[in-house]
């Protein structure tokens, strides 16, 4: 970041002499501080999971939902500026709807990814807008099977077997790689849900002083008839318990209370602040 202060980083759509677009790089910074999101592609679908920091005990548990549905068969989760993510999802819904109206069939995930990529890229072209402060992980099941993509603020996107973004992405990526190596034939949907929970717990380890909730959704040919649905009830409970046990087992020196969600006393901070990922801290 030696070019900070040279003026080339003050406006979007401007190249620095060495060919970089700094505003896009800064948008990535907003993502890197965001809460961890992951996506796993499994045998017949995808699973999304996200860490939800509990910044105040006044927050209503299980509300303030983060994962969103775009079309019946496509789900999305993102890290970074949450309102930007909502903007992106709203656009995604428009694209999916317009495709359906034009062609009379639900949009395929690859062409959906392409349209989203174009939209995000367009926000790097003009100085009248700023890039999206989110990296989005989305995917679902279409006639060609499951698809998973990750879309960055630059508008670049790739297909993944397992994707992670946000603060805990390093840990999460390492775990995802291990998971893919160990399961060359892919996981079952239910197994993927459990592993997703575990990875979110592990990625949270570096951030232990903060309480969190976990939110999981899936889209699977066998379990949800190809529809994107939230995981709740017993399956969610099971995944949570599995994750806690696994993470606890790795570090037996920990006191058990550290693994309990929601039991931490709030340290009162003098004022409400907003951190870079757009999660409001209410202390």
């Amino acid at each position, binding site marked *: 970041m030696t070019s900070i202060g040279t003026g080339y980083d003050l406006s979007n759509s401007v190249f620095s002499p060495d060919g970089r677009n700094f505003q896009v790089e800064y948008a990535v910074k907003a993502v890197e501080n965001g809460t961890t999101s992951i996506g796993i592609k499994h045998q017949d679908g995808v699973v999304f999971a996200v860490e939800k920091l509990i910044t105040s005990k006044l927050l209503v548990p*299980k*509300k303030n*939902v983060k994962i*969103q*549905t775009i*079309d*019946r068969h496509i789900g999305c989760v993102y890290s970074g500026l949450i309102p930007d993510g909502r903007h992106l999802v709203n656009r995604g*819904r428009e694209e999916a*709807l317009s495709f359906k*109206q034009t062609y009379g069939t639900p949009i395929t995930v690859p062409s959906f990814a392409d349209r989203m990529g174009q939209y995000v890229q367009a926000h790097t072209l003009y100085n009248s807008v700023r890039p999206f402060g989110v990296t989005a992980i989305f995917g679902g099941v279409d006639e060609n099977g499951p698809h998973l993509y990750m879309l960055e603020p630059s508008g670049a996107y790739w297909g993944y077997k397992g994707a992670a973004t946000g603060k805990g992405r390093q840990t999460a990526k390492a775990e995802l790689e291990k998971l893919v190596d160990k399961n060359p034939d892919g996981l079952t949907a239910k197994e993927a849900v459990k592993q997703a929970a575990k990875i979110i717990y592990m990625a949270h380890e570096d951030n232990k002083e903060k309480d969190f909730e976990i939110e999981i959704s899936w889209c699977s040919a066998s379990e949800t008839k190809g529809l994107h649905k939230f995981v709740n009830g017993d399956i969610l409970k099971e995944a949570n318990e599995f994750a806690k046990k696994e993470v606890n087992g790795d570090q037996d020196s920990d006191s058990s209370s550290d693994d309990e969600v929601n039991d931490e006393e709030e340290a009162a901070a003098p004022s409400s602040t907003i951190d870079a990922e757009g999660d409001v801290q209410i202390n």
Partner: protein
Amino acid sequence: MNHDPFHWGRPSDEQYGAYNNTIANASPYPKMNTQQPIVTGTSVISMQYDNGVIIAADNLGSYGSLLRFNDIERLICVGKNTVVGISGDISDMQHIERLLDEMEMENNYDNSCADDEESLRPSYVFEYLAAVMYQRRSKMNPLWNALIVAGVEEGKQFLRYVNLLGVTYSSPTLATGFGAHLAVPLLRRVVDHESDIEKTNLETAEKTIVECMKVLYYRDARSSRKYSLAIIDNDKGLIFKKNQEVSEMVWGFAKDIRGYGTQTV
């Protein structure tokens, strides 16, 4: 003054001679929208009973008097406790199907209670459709249909009608098209007043509807034997019966009918 509406606001023919459409390359009419339905579905019939509502419609799509399509589903489920029965133009019906699909999708967006408290209700669906129908007729571009929305809401029956004019009404028994003339009197033999609803159980109601489908098949030349029937019950939920067939008919008299068809007297 020339009272022909097509001449309103135009230069008078007495003064300037007849308007020459070929020179202006103009249509002889002002802007026109749908003037008639093309492929049509016939009656939808429905009634309330003590614990819900029943609705039925056959599976025929007629092209004039030609029985063109025999697998048209005219009962559309919306959410978990609403069925919309549609008669009239089939392409307009398919447009309405798309609207309802979008409505259902939109209700699921970011709605954490979408499966229970904030799920779609028949009254929401009806109000929306009535708004669409009225708006279209006010643009002089109607959707050429008559609709019946049937369902249960907060333990009570919901049954309401809206048509291409934007007119709406409710009744313990409702039917569109030919059914309004042929089926309603028969339905009213069972449920005439509001107070009769609670005296009528599902079995009686279903028998009545099935009987009406038979009468309609006998007397409505644009009807088909095959039909669908939906029951929305407070306890049992939505029961959708496809591929029902009108049965136990008597056609022996037919051979004696004279004056129609190809036979020579």
